[in-house]
């Protein structure tokens, strides 16, 4: 990695469609303001298209020799606001480290910025948001140097971003409007940046080839173990788990030429699978209800504190 990279301005800033929609979803489903961290990576833009057609009359010249692109690929939202900084916007490194450790982030994910969503407020960075952005970019540098976990030289500082969101709806909630604006931290100021969306389609093929999605999925206790053990199990056992009660012989019959005779068998297989899915859905429903009731409980406690009943 080049050491002069930090001096280079961002040539292009993009966000993957699913990431943006999931950020918008997090915001629109929350009652009030939200904040979180942005993950992504810094890459060299693919060089301009090379034409093997020698008759091509024009020659392309890149504006800078090593244009860099920043892609936002994932995010996490915190459960409350003002969770890792003080009223002056100074980062509480200990809390931040604890949050990051608790979040079980993939080792290759890089924090490239943070986000804040607030309703009924202008889409300009506030006093504290700038302070947090600056302080966060500094403390991440320190964390990085302290941990020495990255292979990159410490002279490499990725650009730092701030994503500001706002949302509003008509009084009858028929139309919801979502707005977002990305900012790049430059010399203690936040400069607005245009941000392109990466979507599926022929126009995005190039980006898609160089695109690797990473999303920090909040791992729930217990499930994590299941997933790990799943990988360790032999193929046969895995198949057995999925197709419970169906031996290999029984399955082979279904795949053969005489499969048509075994429609009842197939239906039985699906019924079992559906049953499994159903019980899974049920447990998801129960745990969601628990989470929701806990959230309501928290909301009540906060309201009580604020003197609202």
């Amino acid at each position: 990695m080049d050491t002069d990279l930090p001096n280079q301005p961002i040539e292009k800033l993009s966000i993957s469609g699913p990431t943006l929609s999931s950020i918008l979803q997090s915001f629109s489903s929350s009652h009030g303001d939200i904040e979180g961290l942005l993950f992504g990576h810094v890459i060299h833009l693919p060089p301009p298209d090379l034409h093997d057609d020698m008759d091509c009359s024009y020659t392309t010249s890149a504006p800078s020799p090593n244009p860099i692109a920043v892609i936002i690929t994932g995010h996490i939202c915190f459960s409350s606001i003002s969770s890792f900084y003080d009223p002056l916007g100074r980062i509480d490194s200990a809390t931040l480290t604890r949050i990051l450790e608790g979040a079980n982030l993939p080792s290759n994910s890089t924090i490239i910025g943070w986000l804040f969503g607030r309703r009924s407020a202008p889409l300009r960075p506030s006093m504290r948001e700038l302070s947090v952005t600056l302080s966060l970019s500094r403390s991440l540098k320190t964390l990085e140097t302290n941990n020495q976990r990255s292979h990159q030289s410490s002279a490499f500082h990725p650009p730092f971003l701030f994503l500001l969101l706002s949302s509003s709806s008509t009084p009858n909630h028929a139309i919801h409007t979502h707005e977002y604006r990305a900012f790049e931290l430059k010399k203690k100021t936040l400069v607005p940046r245009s941000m392109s969306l990466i979507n599926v389609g022929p126009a995005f093929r190039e980006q898609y080839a160089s695109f690797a999605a990473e999303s920090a999925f909040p791992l729930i206790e217990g499930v994590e173990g299941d997933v790990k053990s799943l990988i360790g199990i032999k193929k046969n056992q895995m198949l057995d788990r999925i197709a419970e009660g169906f031996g290999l012989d029984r399955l082979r019959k279904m795949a053969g030429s005489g499969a048509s005779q075994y429609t009842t068998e197939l239906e039985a297989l699906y019924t079992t699978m559906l049953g499994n899915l159903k019980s899974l859905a049920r447990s998801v429903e129960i745990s969601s209800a628990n989470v929701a009731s806990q959230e309501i409980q928290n909301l009540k406690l906060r309201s009580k504190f604020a003197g609202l009943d």
Partner: protein
Amino acid sequence: MSVKAPPPLIYSQIKYLSTKSPLPFKIEQLRSGDKIGKHSDRFTLQIPFCLDYIKWDVIYNAQYPLVAPDFIFSPEDEDFHPLLFGDKGRTRFEMGSLCNWNIKDPSRLLLVVNELRKKYLDYQKKRVAELDDDRLKFEISTLLSREGLEVLLLFASDRPQEVKFAIPLLENIPLNKIVQCCPWKQEQKIYLQAIFPITQKYSAPSAPRLNLVCTSELKIVFSIDDVKLPIWINGMCMAEYLPNLENSLEAQILAAGASIGARRRFIEALAPVFGRPVEADSVYCRRATVLVAGTFSFLVHFALTPQFPKQQPILTMQSSCHFTSQGTPISSPSLRTYPWSPRWEPSIMVERIFEYIGEELLTFKKYCNENSSQR
């Protein structure tokens, strides 16, 4: 969407800010940051600054009442970063009220806003001092020592065009004391507003636009709009201009104070001739009304200007017996051309007015009969 009340703790801070401060803050667009709009927790704050208002958005969070409010400044002040100034220790000291935020303290928001306003003033002064204009550099260096000076860079089509100075005048005269038993809670002030155009390189500096401004209550006893400003001579600077202005202004303020005493004596002199006034302004002595009773009863209103006794009272007669078709009593036009001398004793002034009213009586009665609705 209808405006919902802010949560009690936030409300008490907003109320303290708008009622307990000597500066008249205005709260606008109270709104909710909640999806369902249950509680208002953000608003636009109009802050008096440099004889104008600046607008900041104040963002509280009703769901997290412990969290300190945040501020969004106007787009022209995009490089105003009060939390990034200087070293960390200084910011913590200067923004102490925000650093040790406490939602349960009603005065806390006002303290934070005042701290920010102070930082904003420093920011504006720094901006003006950095302009490439030698005259303005000189003006600001000579004026900086004046207590209470405020400056503001004025933009037109995204570029700084002018600099506005609000220069407090007569700081050594307690203006509140010119009225006896002063009812004013707010400290009265007089400012010279000077707007300097920013001079382009190699062009001659043009004269500033000058204007006197005072607090609204002072206008009741002192008509600031009638003050004639000394002429600004080319090549002059504020340090030369201000002493002259302050001297003439001081004399006029003292005269305004003396006028209140003269008006009071005039109103007191009404009683022996007209009988006790039905109504009288006992503080500023700007108005009095007497009743003339008889077969034709009517009221006489006296309006006294701050230039009394130089300017004679404006009289209006109002009938108690004649009404228009709308049911309002018929009044005469304002009477201001009757015999008058500012050198007369108050008792003579009142007697002469009494005689004049006696002469006007028949004309007014005729006027009433012509204009009243026939019943």
